[in-house]
């Protein structure tokens, strides 16, 4: 049941994302998209926070960070 909800939720979110009307954007129109704050990833300065979350919480992944390796046991 939980797995079914997971996949329904994932598909609904995917459909929402894809339903955005993508308008063509030329290179010269990307001054906002290319802003360093618009990057689709975590910042380098967040590295320790992400490590701590991986160690203190039971889940990880899908954020560009580590998915295993090492101890993180304290």
């Amino acid at each position, binding site marked *: 049941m*939980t*797995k079914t909800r*997971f996949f329904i*939720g*994932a598909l609904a*979110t*995917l459909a929402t*994302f894809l339903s*955005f*009307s*993508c*308008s*063509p*954007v030329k290179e010269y*129109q*990307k001054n*906002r*998209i290319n*802003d*360093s*704050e*618009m*990057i*689709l990833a975590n*910042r*380098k*300065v*967040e*590295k*320790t*926070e992400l*490590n*701590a*979350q991986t*160690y*203190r*919480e*039971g*889940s*990880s*992944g*899908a*954020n*560009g960070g580590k*998915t*295993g*390796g*090492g*101890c993180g*046991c*304290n």
Partner: protein
Amino acid sequence: MAARPAAVAGAIETIKTEKIDMRKICLTVVGMYLMLLHAFSQVASSDSSGYKARKLKLEEVNLVSSYYNQTADKSAVMGGRTDYKGNGDVTDLSNGLDLKFVGLDSKGRKNALTGGLGIDYHTAASQAYVDSNGHARNNGTRIYPTLDWSIENERKGMEFGLGTYYSAEHNYYHSLGLNTSLSKKNHHNGEFSVKLTGYFDRIKMILPSEFDPVDSVKSTSSADSVVYITTASGRTEALTYVNGQAVGGSSTTITPSKARDTYTASFSFAQVINQRIQGSIAMDFVYQSGYLGLPFHRVYLNTGKDTIENLPSQRFKLPIGFRLNYFLGDNIIIRTYYRLYIDNWGMVSHTANVEVPFKFTPFISLSPFYRYYVQKAVNYFSPYEKHSTSDQYYTSNYALASFSSQSYGAGLRIAAPNGIFGSLNMLEIRYAHYTQTTDLVADVVSLNLKFK
């Protein structure tokens, strides 16, 4: 009109024939000229394309330093005890340095080589209780070098990468990581990426002191023996006893180890939606096998006796994450992230994060953020003294319990295209406060300096 004499007619015919030959010669010369022009034009276009090999050159240096401070109880080493022995206080000072070299090959492809070195020093109150009296070493150092190489063909919008990672700490011999990645941009501002990663760990079997093997090897007589003592630092010493007295000092032996492997296939798709919005979807398929618990995590059973955490030897994880960034007006950006996670141990979690950078100027921004996280426990978790002897798998590690957490804070970023001080290109400082419903509270301060 008088008829032409035969001699004149012959001369006219000769002139006509020569004119045709001249035309042929002229056309041939023009053709050769055009061929030469064409040939030179190819050379010229080759030169003007900018595809000139350039050796690797240091382009960017990143320095990231952090200080982490945590107060907690119910430590996993003491099986979730709530008294002073369950102290889970931690401090961690981490420093990382990345050097990025960039060059071009003869085909105009961008090569990037990044070498990194990280060193962490931590203190952990719970680590002292690997020894049942709390006398074990309570600190440690972790060293982790990385090396990544990538090649990017901008014309084709493709990038290929290889990476290695190594880590060593007192409680595992090594963690070796290898990865390879491939990404492809399309003509509609979309980018698809795939990354395959493997981590290969050797876990040191450091047992709580009451489980140390004693008198297990080489008994020369009923009164003589060799006693093995494994310390929290991972060092195993062999002490020789004769008639109850230690003789001959000690010799260091190798602590036994067990393997833990992690394989990850990551897929992501990023899309520019319009001039102000872009988003991405990322999904990881993670498979772990081997020794997935830790040998110094105690579990206290409902009989009052303690034992060592025991977890299945396989775990399959499936996280899926979504990002959506929106540039609102000229000064505000809204960064959002949501992740759904499920695994075959019964854990389900949700993560929601929102960050709103406000730009005072194009180069100075303040970014407050808020993160909410909630998870359902794995099937094998029970608190202190709640597991029964009939349980097949058991853990009292609160990282695998049901709880929610909140985190908030802010970051300040200063970046100037011509540098802030000399070659310092960007400075970012960030503070985060983190609370869990398990009574864990943590604070993190981080600094990132980028030099170009």
